[in-house]
């Protein structure tokens, strides 16, 4: 029994990604001594916090069979709101609430159109992306926000036991949502909705409420990621978070969440985010020309998924 249990772990996609990460870590530690340094690893964690936090929500959305390409602009919008309030001297607590609130409202709007308006998620969120970008320009009017007070920047820069505070928060969020997805009825309902909506409806799961819920959570998490962004960079520009959506989606998909819905884990997405992060980090350390970064990331994406496919075939025969 334990034997088959172990084999099952080996069969998981998360394991492939973990294997690749280990491989790269070994490779980079052997080729550059700087890789395993505390400061570098801490950097890596700092850089990943925003992606990882949003990936939690994105994992849930993709498990329901949906997608959200507006996550980058949601992050941007929340950081504009947070930045404006911070510079205006409001209390950090209020700022935290309003960043979360901004994301939540956007997520609820997306979720409402998808769940109650029957509009496909890709359309709603593509539209939302353009609308939010437009509003961000309008709010900032081309003036970037700088001069963020130092109090809030602890979230982005502070460390506790040598690990960035943002990463602690990420770890707590990941632990909570992993628990939520595996042990709470609503968490399981998310899988059910993605795996077989018809069956879910018949067994009395409220499809609309579940859909609304995942988009709202993703919105709120992206809002929080926006705050972390502000706290980290100390600057809010008009194009904050552009291109971020593909980064998050790539991490989630690489981590084994099926874009057809019904399958995936948050840990997997975290590993996916790590894989991309390590590749980028390693390439700088090895001083591989910056232009070929995309080449390496792309080839690795294909490779890691291909390993899975080949292994699945091997098992079948």
């Amino acid at each position, binding site marked *: 029994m334990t034997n088959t249990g172990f084999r099952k772990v080996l069969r998981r996609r998360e394991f492939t990604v973990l294997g690749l990460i280990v491989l790269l870590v070994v490779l980079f530690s052997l080729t550059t001594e700087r890789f395993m340094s505390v400061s570098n690893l801490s950097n890596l964690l700092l850089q990943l916090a925003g992606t990882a936090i949003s990936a939690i929500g994105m994992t849930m959305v993709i498990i329901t069979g949906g997608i959200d390409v507006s996550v980058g602009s949601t992050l941007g919008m929340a950081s504009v709101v947070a930045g404006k309030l911070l510079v205006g001297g409001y209390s950090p607590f209020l700022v935290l609430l309003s960043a979360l609130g901004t994301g939540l409202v956007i997520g609820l709007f997306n979720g409402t159109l998808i769940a109650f308006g029957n509009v496909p998620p890709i359309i709603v969120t593509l539209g939302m992306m353009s609308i939010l970008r437009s509003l961000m320009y309008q709010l900032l009017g081309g003036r970037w926000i700088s001069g963020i007070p130092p109090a809030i920047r602890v979230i982005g820069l502070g460390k506790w036991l040598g690990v960035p505070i943002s990463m602690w928060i990420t770890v707590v969020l990941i632990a909570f949502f992993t628990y939520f997805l595996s042990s709470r009825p609503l968490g399981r309902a998310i899988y059910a909705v993605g795996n077989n909506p018809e069956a879910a409806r018949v067994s009395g799961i409220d499809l609309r409420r579940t859909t609304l819920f995942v988009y709202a959570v993703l919105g709120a998490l992206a809002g929080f990621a926006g705050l972390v962004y502000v706290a980290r960079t100390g600057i809010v520009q008009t194009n904050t978070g552009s291109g971020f959506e593909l980064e998050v989606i790539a991490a989630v998909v690489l981590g084994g969440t099926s874009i057809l819905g019904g399958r995936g884990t948050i840990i997997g997405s975290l590993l996916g985010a790590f894989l991309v992060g390590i590749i980028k980090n390693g390439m*700088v350390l090895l001083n591989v020309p910056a232009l070929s970064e995309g080449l390496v990331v792309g080839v690795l994406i294909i490779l890691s998924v291909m390993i899975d496919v080949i292994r699945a075939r091997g098992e079948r025969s």
Partner: protein
Amino acid sequence: MKRFAVVLFVVLAVLLLSVVMAEAKYRIAFVPKLIGIPYFNAMEEGGKKAAQDLDVEFIYTGPVTADVAKQIEIIDNLITQGVDAIAVAPNDPAAITPVLKKAKEKGILVMTSDTDGAQDVRDLFVNQALQNEIGYTVMDELAKAMNYEGEFAIVSCGPTAWNLNIWIAYELERLAQYPKMKLVTIRYAEEDVQMAINVMLDLINAFPNLKGVIGQCSTSAPGVAEAIEQAGKSGQIVATGLSVPSMMAKYVKSGTVKSFVLWNPIDLGYLTVWAAKYLLDGNQFEDGKEYEVPGIETKPKYIAKDKMLVLGPPKVFDASNIDQYMFF
């Protein structure tokens, strides 16, 4: 049929009206590389001020990302609107040529500003400073801050930004004068502060002997400075580059940045509109002459062989003067 006739009539009436209205004032358009960044906002501000002073209409419109194709489309639509002068900060100096040619054929005054392009078509290039002087100055400032020795890196923005690449080329040319300095790598961080921070943090780890860094554009310069402070390397690594004072002041004051380079973009915007009005009024510039332009602090000089009006030498900002320029 009747309704169609009515619609047609209304359309013609509106058309006619707009033509009549257009005659009233010069309509001068400025198309930046992209809108929504502080640098071009400052140029817009200058342009608006000039429009008020000179009693012309100022149109400021551009793409939301530094997209060549979109910029061309916008210029084409300005031609359709029938403006009197178009000034462009082209995203691609060659790509802009056909549409500017078309504008010129329609009798529109065609200029470039901030970045040159379409040299054989445009009537004037309003230049902030000479390309080589910018590159040299940045390199000199870095060398001075690094005490003329050690390893340094360049963090640029879009890998394809034409003028950034030209400046890098001149920086490298100037590097020959500083034999004890060594460029270790050039990295790109798009127009994104966070990415610049990430890239710089990685660089600090990758190159333990790093002594200096150039932030090649207005987002990467504050980004690299921020990264140095976050890594606690302030004092060991110096940053310089090209950026706006409002974003750099913090790092100048903390000493991470000794000095950085730019010009006054408000003046550049003002000069662009002023020059357009000057030419539309039928005046000609004279070679080598320095012009007294009310409202700007330098004396722009005209170079006839390049049909170029130069705002002045690049400006170096440091702790001594930055407070006067915090408005852009």
